[in-house]
């Protein structure tokens, strides 16, 4: 039972790292980026290819996945995404769907459509039991890494100048740029970090969630749920939403397997019905 809770928390933390970039992008640029999963997939495949073809150790692959996905974001943001910020949401949805199709088929072409497998190092395999809880080592690793990242992000947001600039730009980009903040640069930096985090999440998730070219499509709904329920104005909102989602999903499948996936979707619809701006968004926020 507690093991299940532990598993749910691990799943939730992973979802958080994957989705936080999307949440911030949405909150900052009001841009619905359905292609966010493609950056996660990029990170996952970078890890798989480096580990399987070049024998790079797992731990080294994680920062490389972050950097790789971040670079991809840095390449796409000024060239493609920036033109789309002012567009209506429909255009953004179509644009990102188009990108997803391109990414999915390109990966299929280059690497093939099979599930990719990696071998995590031996010290991450297996589990140990403490009291009534079975702690899987890899899942514990995920929780630790993601918690560190969450704390780091919160610290950056609250304690650094960049963070306050970011919050200013989220609240009101026009006033922010009127005050002399280079909003474009802030957007770029945020997008790069968000994509990098997605890539890192993809790398971490390759072992637990599986990795194949349809990854962005399969998990897009979960990322969107995290953003919609968690709201896009804070870091803690998506974190709590992701944890809620992960735990509800795992518990639901154990206790009520007949309903399984329904629980997540129904929960989401109910939450959005009651609080359309998201469960954890600040009241009075712009969106």
């Amino acid at each position: 039972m507690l093991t299940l809770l532990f598993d749910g928390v691990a799943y939730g933390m992973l979802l958080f790292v994957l989705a936080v970039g999307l949440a911030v992008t949405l909150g900052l640029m009001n841009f619905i980026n359905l292609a966010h999963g493609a950056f996660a997939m990029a990170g996952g495949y970078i890890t798989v290819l480096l580990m399987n073809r070049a024998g790079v150790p797992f731990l080294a692959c994680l920062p490389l996945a972050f950097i790789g996905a971040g670079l991809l974001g840095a390449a796409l943001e000024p060239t493609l995404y920036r033109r789309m910020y002012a567009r209506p949401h429909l255009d953004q949805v179509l644009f990102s769907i188009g990108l997803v199709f391109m990414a999915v088929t390109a990966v299929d072409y280059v690497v093939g459509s099979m599930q990719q497998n990696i071998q995590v190092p031996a010290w991450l395999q297996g589990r140990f039991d403490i009291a009534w809880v079975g702690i899987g080592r890899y899942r514990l690793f995920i929780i630790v890494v993601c918690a560190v990242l969450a704390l780091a992000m919160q610290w950056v947001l609250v304690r650094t100048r960049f963070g306050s600039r970011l919050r200013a730009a989220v609240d009101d980009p026009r006033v922010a740029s009127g005050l002399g903040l280079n909003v474009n640069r802030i957007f770029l930096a945020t997008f790069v970090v968000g994509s990098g985090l997605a890539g890192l999440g993809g790398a971490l998730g390759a072992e637990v969630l599986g990795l194949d070219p349809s990854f962005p499509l399969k998990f897009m709904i979960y990322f969107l749920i995290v953003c919609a329920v968690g709201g896009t104005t804070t870091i803690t909102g998506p974190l709590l939403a992701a944890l809620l989602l992960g735990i509800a999903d795992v518990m639901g499948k154990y206790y009520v397997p007949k309903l399984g996936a329904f629980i997540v979707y129904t929960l989401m619809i109910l939450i959005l019905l009651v609080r359309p701006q998201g469960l954890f968004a600040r009241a009075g926020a712009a969106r």
Partner: protein
Amino acid sequence: MNLCERLSRAALGLAVAAAALAAPLAQAADAGPIKIGLILPMTGQSASTGRQIEAAVKLWVAQNGNKVAGRQVEVILKDDGAVPDTTRRLAQELIVNDKVAVLAGFGITPTALATAPLGTQSKTPMVVMAAATSSITQASPYFIRTSFTLPQVTVSIADWAAKNGIKKAISLVADYGPGFDAEKFFDSQFRLDGGQVLDKLRTPLRSPDFAPVLQKVADAKPDALFVFLPSGQGATFMKQFAERGLDKSGVRLIATGDVTDDDQLADMGEVAIGVVNSHHYSAAHPSEANKKFVKAFEAANKFRPNFMAVGGYDGMRVIYKALEATKGEGGEKLLEAMKGQIFESPRGPVLIDAQTRDIVQDVYIRKVERVPAMGNQLYNVEFDVIKQVKDPGKAK
């Protein structure tokens, strides 16, 4: 939008329409060559099935030429993306416009079922090379199957399990049609042999997370866990199984061969070793015919053949031999010539049952091992066989 723009849009649409429609109209229906309509999922989730079967069909034609009974044979390949109404439309076009003598392929069950009434109406034999649900051959008298049925391989492993010291089992299947079939037949056979099925678990087909179900298995402590998952999820499952220490806690992992699909087996890693499973084909099957088949297949492609490929290869064999027997004629005569064929396939001896039109074949019990003689790769090594298994789904 003003008038000019609307007209431009209309013109664009109609121009594209005219251009594309003109193309097929330009091809006249040919009286000469015999056409085989091959409808496969080349894109989408089942793309690997399409890839394997296409490679096998190409191999057959390369080895046996493209002339039968003095006439040219043409294979028309169409991609249905495993969407049943696309399959149906493509089949209709192949029958009506291209006048194919036989339809083949059918990557997943709904695509075969959608096409059934067309084959019956037009008297076109349909060779099922991949789909594995029992009821397909009953949906139309024109279906011939060269793949396998899931019940065939499921009762084999259930039987083996009961006779090899496994008293209590839990079944875990994916939450869709073939999964329900596997669950039902495992349950009935295992209990028939005196075993006890503790629980029947299901996982969602998309984005599966095995943590909750594995927890249930750990709680119940059966002798064995029977698994049926579509190929692709097998590796993730086995990793999580091992991660929870379930393999060490005395729970044996048994499955149908879909989980240890040859297409993916080489990449699965150590976790797959020791998994006992049942299937009708292994790339490591030690017959001369198979060794030749695998060698030629691997030479032409960068991957090894799996059970889908052998379904395609044998399907072509059935079609060619039937065409020879009817001297190129199609329709009911062609169907009759397909029934009752007995031959040596790379998988072993095979019979196309004349009554049920389904395939009767040997089912092997295999274990995943590393084979030094074959590049030290992982293979399903056969150690037991149940001969000439008829589809139990029809025996009722």
